[in-house]
């Protein structure tokens, strides 16, 4: 049985034919749509490398069945920059050296984008660390990651304040 679903991925609406309901959102992105920026770490919801935004919220794509997300809007790391203009979180990760090997970085960045949208952490590093605890970094780049998230949040907040004025 073929299951036909419709997804909007990085702003582009796509119809996907699934020959098997077992396909996770992560495997759909990586193996069938060639969006390999989203990483497969543990594949069991423990490491956060597969984090994407679904309808604006960060989730683990390894623990989501693609077929169940029919109609959803997906944002992956590939959809974050505008051409050569990096998203503020991407720029802040470079400025603060928020990575070493880089494998967890797409998940870290998508998680940080989700965290900033959730608006719960503010400028409190403790709340940022707690809010980012679903993303593991075996290189231990956490200090740079926390600094990058705080910096990006401040920049995004100031841009939004200016836009509101």
């Amino acid at each position, binding site marked *: 049985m073929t*299951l036909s679903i419709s997804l909007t991925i990085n702003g582009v609406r796509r119809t996907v034919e699934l020959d*098997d*309901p*077992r396909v*996770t959102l992560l495997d759909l992105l990586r193996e069938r749509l060639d969006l390999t920026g989203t990483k497969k770490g543990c*594949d*069991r*919801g423990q490491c*956060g490398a597969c*984090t994407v935004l679904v309808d604006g*919220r*960060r*989730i*683990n794509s390894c*623990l*989501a*069945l693609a*077929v*169940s997300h*029919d109609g959803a809007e997906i944002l992956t790391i590939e959809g974050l920059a505008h051409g050569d203009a990096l998203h503020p979180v991407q720029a802040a990760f470079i400025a603060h050296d928020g990575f070493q090997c880089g494998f967890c970085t797409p998940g870290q960045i998508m*998680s940080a984008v*989700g*965290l900033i949208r*959730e608006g*719960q952490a503010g400028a*409190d590093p*403790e*709340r940022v*660390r*707690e*809010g*980012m*605890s*679903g*993303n593991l970094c075996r290189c231990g780049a956490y200090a740079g990651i926390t600094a990058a998230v705080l910096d990006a949040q401040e920049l995004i907040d100031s841009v939004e304040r200016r836009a509101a004025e």
Partner: protein
Amino acid sequence: MNRFDYVRPATVAEAVAAASEPGAAYLAAGTNLLDLMKGGISRPPRLVDITHLPGLDQVERLSDGAWRIGALVRNADLAHDPDFAADYPAVAEALLSGASAQLRNAATVGGNLLQRTRCAYFYDPASACNKRRPGTGCDARDGENQAHAVLGWSEGCIATHPSDFCVPLVALDAVVEIEGRAGRREIALDTLHRLPGDAPERDSVLGPGDLIIAVRLPAEAAAFAAHARYLKLRERTSYAFAVVSAAAALRLDGGTIREARLALGGVAAKPWRARAAEQVLAGEAPTPEAYRRAAEVALADAQPSGDNAVKIELARRIVTRALALAAAGTPDRVPALPGSCFSPVPGALHAV
């Protein structure tokens, strides 16, 4: 992962009919079920996807002041609902102390209640486990069992229920609305989960096709809002299951505890309501001595199920500390580290 039929019903009635087939399972977010299926621990021949059912994702205050939480409400949405969190702050704190932000964004209220134990032997298909395969034995009994149950366990199973959310819910007399083949019924959350006895494969009293529709919290439970906390000891500060946890809620009148609510997590196959300890506290002054007496009573029946006698003392201490934190007053905002033992206790000497 096994092959399965994927069914997406349009109504609750269709869902119940589809899930009444032998072995069928409901799929909500799948944050626990897909993990179990990837490990070959659960092998449902049919998944009934309830995520597209209408009307199950509302948080609403009913006319009698009770709160009704739809089964598909996401954990994060409930925890961050400011009106709900104001009435039931310990529930919000428990939710935010659990899992990770990504998982809380996906995981549902109904799924949280029905998540399965994280016992490592249950998760390992090569190990004997009466919960996974009835009658095969329990490798946890002679294995790594420091985190296992100290209350309500049986020779056949020493696993614990992992939910944080359920602990304050059961303390506050939450009710579960269930749709089944015979129609709608309601039960106290305290009676949803089963102790293992000689049938550890049955986590709950639900039968084939039974679907949790909503969880209700009574209006009276909001009377504890000014003095309600959830406290959780874990092996790392964030993103870990409880070794032991406690939800404590007090109704204070001047220098007297009018009414107390207390439940423990991580100690049994169900969230553990400590009613006898609540009785000990009623009418007492809110003092460390009263909290310690309550903790003694709460753990009076506790027995190690293996190399875990330490959990009994840890549970006494978490109860004592949770009561002291509750008496000190609910903070204006959930702490940066929700439920953390590293939050300071007013007046405590533990840092000296």
